[in-house]
């Protein structure tokens, strides 16, 4: 699943470490999310959406064919 996490984070001038600290996850998790290697749980997706003041769908892009 693709996402706009890196773009949104950079737009706000936040480091991965800072975002990780706010969301209470490791920096590696943020890196993996940004690279699309890891899909977050629904709880983490909500946390991320709340942090950026957006809806989940605006950050995470669902693709029908993606596995």
């Amino acid at each position: 699943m693709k996402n706009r996490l890196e773009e949104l984070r950079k737009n706000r001038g936040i480091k991965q470490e800072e975002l990780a600290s706010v969301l209470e996850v490791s920096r590696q998790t943020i890196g993996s999310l940004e690279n699309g290697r890891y899909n977050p749980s629904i709880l983490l997706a909500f946390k991320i959406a709340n942090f950026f003041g957006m809806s989940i769908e605006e950050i995470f892009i669902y693709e029908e064919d993606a596995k």
Partner: protein
Amino acid sequence: MKNTKHWLITGSGIALLAVGFFLMKNIDNSNNFLMNLPYVFVGIGSGVFGSGMGSIVTSRTLKKHPETQRVLEIEKKDERNIAISNRAKAKAYDAMTFVFGALMVSFALMGIELVAVLLLVFSYLFVHGYGIYYRCKYDREM
């Protein structure tokens, strides 16, 4: 509360060590099984004592560094770390099924004592039964 638990574990370790050393001095040497018992107590006691002491030292050190404690707590609860750990455990469990299976067949072909083979078979079945139990439990819960 957490510290009390660590102290209790450390105390149990010391008690096991003391029992081990006591038995070493006083046990009757005629029984083969009993002869090994003190060393078992000393071994387990050392492990429990070491684990308890390690937890106490870690807990005391982290009290002085709350930021490090927070980072460690985050690493421990991090959902990706938990997912990785669970996937690794699942892979190891799958591998264990084949390794134990091969070992049981090898032991049976080698003509190893029946008790040993049966113990291995029961352990194998117990682990798989445990897996089935949790599968059913989680199936009801989720």
